[in-house]
């Protein structure tokens, strides 16, 4: 064999391919199939990386004593009884709500279907707040689906592979969504800061009635997130003389850093889905 062929041509081919891939990925939806195909090949890596966590959980489950299991079982049964009682009331309220909305000629929010998924990975890049879940388009996960835990919203699916999906968290610096204060209905834009548990409200006038401890719920504007789920609580409000807007920080109600399972909400069919809520705003 002689010396390797001149690699310069191959480098040029690779560079051109890389630049085409970047442009396609950023500007068009055509890179989707490539991502989908490679996503099927990368999913096993995420599954294997999650194995130590899984087996640790399995071991601790096996090591629990009978009495503590019985205790837990009793506690959960009591809790489920209380929750079932609440759900009974909810069915009546929901029916009433639908009737009232029909009277007002507005469309009814139907009860959404949910799918449970397990978190199998976190993004290793500190610049991004994303996580990987073990359900993909094989389980009817689609891009744009809202993801929540028992306490509130976590984020949305940004990439659905065949076996796993990638979820963009509320706290990512490129994420923003529309929320309103539960107490009085004041609307604002909630943006991530890139820090775990850090959110801020953008462009809120100094005089707006927002206080520490207020609950922010999703508005459903932008048609990305369902309406009325808790999103965050206000942690601090600072008024600075001279600044046009108040400086307001919030913390997600969902326990993003501790959750191991999440719920995916199946969107109810909407007449149109025009504007995405993900913005490039940082």
């Amino acid at each position, binding site marked *: 064999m002689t010396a390797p062929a001149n690699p310069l041509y191959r480098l040029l081919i690779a560079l051109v391919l890389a*630049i085409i*891939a970047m442009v396609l990925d950023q500007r068009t939806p055509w890179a989707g199939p490539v991502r989908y195909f490679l*996503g099927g090949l990368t999913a096993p890596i995420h599954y294997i990386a999650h194995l130590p966590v899984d087996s640790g959980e399995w071991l601790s489950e096996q090591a629990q004593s009978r009495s503590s299991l019985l205790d837990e079982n009793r506690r959960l049964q009591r809790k489920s009884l209380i929750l079932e009682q609440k759900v009974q009331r909810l069915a009546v309220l929901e029916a009433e709500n639908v009737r009232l909305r029909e009277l007002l000629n507005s469309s009814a929010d139907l009860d959404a279907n949910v799918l449970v998924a397990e978190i199998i990975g976190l993004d*290793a890049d500190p610049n991004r707040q994303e996580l990987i879940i073990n359900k993909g388009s094989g389980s009817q996960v689609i891009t744009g689906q809202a993801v929540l835990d028992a306490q509130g919203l976590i984020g949305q699916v940004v990439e659905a592979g065949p076996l796993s999906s990638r979820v963009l968290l509320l706290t990512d610096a490129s994420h923003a969504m529309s929320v309103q204060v539960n107490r009085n209905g004041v609307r604002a834009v909630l943006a991530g800061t890139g820090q775990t548990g850090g959110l801020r409200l953008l462009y809120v006038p100094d005089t707006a009635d927002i206080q520490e401890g207020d609950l922010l719920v999703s508005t459903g504007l932008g048609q990305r997130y369902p309406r009325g789920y808790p999103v965050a609580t206000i942690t601090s409000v600072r008024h600075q003389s001279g600044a046009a807007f108040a400086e307001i920080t919030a913390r997600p109600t969902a326990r993003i850093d501790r959750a191991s399972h999440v719920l995916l909400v199946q969107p109810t069919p909407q007449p149109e889905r025009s504007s995405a809520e993900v913005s490039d705003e940082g």
Partner: protein
Amino acid sequence: MRDDRPAGTGVLVVTLLLAALLEVIPLPETANWVRPEWMLLVLVYWVLTLPRRVGVLWGFFVGLYMDVLTGATLGQWGLGFSLGAFIMLLAYKRMRVFTVLQQCAVIFLLVGSVSLLAYLVQEAVGRTLYPPYTILYSSLASAVVWRPVCALLRWVQLRFIVR
């Protein structure tokens, strides 16, 4: 006469997949800063030992795999990895006669420049948060683990006959 037919492509791919596993294995948040670029290190090892087989296009496809694995812009690492493989193809004869310290310095510079390229792409799509000097930590970590990785891959290469 020596047998020069290519062999052991499967083993080569498996080492790359193991490196991919190390890229995503969960670590504490602070340890993420010093996570070495495992896939790039393994790729560079194979380019240096098998320059006739593993080259720029391998770099490109490994980089593309890394893009999907880490959820980066498609082509972000593909660009850097193919350039890294190209530089190593030009320098593989020199790398073989370098001392350990010189090799580590080259790896530090190579991982640093490839990461910087990826950072520039990420910056262009507005997905960066921390200043670019944070690349130095992972580049330094890569230089530190370079020799052990080399020794391990050398053993794999001899044990499973990759050529």
